[in-house]
């Protein structure tokens, strides 16, 4: 029974796989099972959508923004938890409020700012925006984690004459691999799948990310269904693979946003 319920839930995905293997002729005549398997659809779709480029662009943008978010947010969280100063609480809550700003609410000024900075239609524009939107939750996760590191550890390092930078790099960060994993997965998913900002900040087809490239081609002309279906599968494979490899970490990372408030 439970197996059956799970399988029924996946019918849309199974249907798309079946669609992706059909010949042009069979697309509308077959309901579920195809007689022949047309694996070549995948090669054609890979070329039509130009997945080489889309994956490369998405990788660059996602990886660069995730790395910078990790560095900037962990530093800020360390300050907000262990190097407090007058006003640090204020900044912390201000940044937290930033979490609540949906991209849709600020796309217009962001678009204008990027145009005026000469960054419109560059990967940098998207990376900067992703960092800004990724920081709040990352700061929150790191801060919560740092607060659980025993204060004596940091005190002892200070007494031994370790500089603050050294303590952060050599003591705090090596202890925080769990938080690093959580933040990495959370921001990776966020940026890999992001659509609205990419749609607005990129104009050149050669710069498109996977979601924008897919939406563009699918909407542009009546693309053959079997190719669209193959494209859907191709674009989903990377994230599935990563998920299957590190399931538990993934679930923890994605639900962190909820648990941490």
């Amino acid at each position, binding site marked *: 029974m*439970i*197996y059956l*319920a*799970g399988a029924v839930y*996946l019918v*849309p*995905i199974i*249907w*798309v796989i079946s669609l992706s293997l059909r010949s042009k002729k069979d697309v509308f005549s077959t*309901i579920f099972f195809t007689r022949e398997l047309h694996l070549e659809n995948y090669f054609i779709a890979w070329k039509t959508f130009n997945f080489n480029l889309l994956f490369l662009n998405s990788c660059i943008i996602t990886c660069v923004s995730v790395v910078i978010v990790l560095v*900037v947010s962990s*530093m*800020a969280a*360390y*300050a*907000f938890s262990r*190097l*407090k*100063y*007058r006003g*640090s609480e204020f*900044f912390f809550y*201000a*940044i*937290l409020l930033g*979490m*609540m700003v949906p*991209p*849709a*609410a*600020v796309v*217009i*000024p*962001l*678009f*204008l*700012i990027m145009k005026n900075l000469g960054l419109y239609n560059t990967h940098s524009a998207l990376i*900067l925006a992703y960092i*800004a939107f990724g920081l709040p939750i990352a700061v929150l996760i790191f801060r919560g984690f740092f607060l659980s590191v025993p204060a004596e550890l940091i005190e002892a390092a200070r007494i031994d004459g370790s500089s*603050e930078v050294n303590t952060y790099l050599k003591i705090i960060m090596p202890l925080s691999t769990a938080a690093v994993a959580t933040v990495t997965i959370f921001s990776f998913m966020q940026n890999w*799948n992001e*659509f*609205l900002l990419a749609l607005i900040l990129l104009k050149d087809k050669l710069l498109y990310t*996977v*979601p924008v490239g*897919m*939406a563009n081609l*699918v*909407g542009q002309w009546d693309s053959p*269904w079997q190719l669209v279906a193959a494209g859907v599968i191709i*674009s*989903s494979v990377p*994230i*599935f693979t990563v998920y299957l490899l590190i399931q538990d970490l993934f*679930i923890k990372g*994605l*639900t962190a*946003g909820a*648990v941490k*408030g």
Partner: protein
Amino acid sequence: MVLRRTARIGFLFSLPAIVFFILFLLIPVLSTFFLSFTEWKGFDLANIKFAGVSNFAELIEDKIFFISLKNTLLFVAFTTVALNILGYIGAAIIDSGRRGTGFFKNALFLPVLLAPIIIGIMWSRMLDAFGIVNQLLKAMEIIKMPILFLGDQRIALYTVIGATIWQYLGYDMLLYYAGLQGVPYELVEAATIDGASKWTIQLKVIIPSLSPVIAITMLLNMIGGFKVFDIVYVMTAGGPNNSSHVFATYLFQQAFRFNRMGYASVIAIVIIVFSFLAAIIRLKLVRQEE
């Protein structure tokens, strides 16, 4: 002395984050308020003109804006209610520990991993006049003419709502599942000994002790609903005949299709107001937890 030194270092540590926050979040939010009083043609800021409150006046008269308001509220209400109820049921199923729960969990979680844009592309094809749903309905002779799930003004929005629920059900299920692990076992046991029925235990023992999880899950669903864009954009683009617009798609249309950035900024303010209300509730919940 030592304290002042760490304070200075602390400030420097947090400076990059603060700069990002100011440049790409604070300034955009503030300039949205400024832009909402202006009007200009094209993207050149040199042509900007002060327009007083005319944008706001127009908004009150704008039928499509009110459609988008109604649709956004419907979207939030339907997805939040359905996701929470179904998510709870799903969590109860995997918590039962029967055979197949591992597969069930992964099956429901799989769509969560996908980009909403991909879900939209899939479902548009599935529900198309030539898609599998209409094929099956025809084969079973339930219908003669295909149902236009996305082409019919009366149902397009609900079709998108359905696809959204399918995508995020697994997410809510996992949140509830995590919550169920925290329900004290002694309580359930005590109630069983007292002769309470299964249903009474669910209603009177388990659900009340899940209230923090319910609060945060509902809040997250609502926040997600208010900012929905991708899936509506790719499935209906607000159509047919503007019947399925939500805040974000209408804003996008005004700003980037009709080049009316000043007017679109007013819609942005409406989104900000809703988000801010949610923010206050969320901060309260975070503080409660700490």
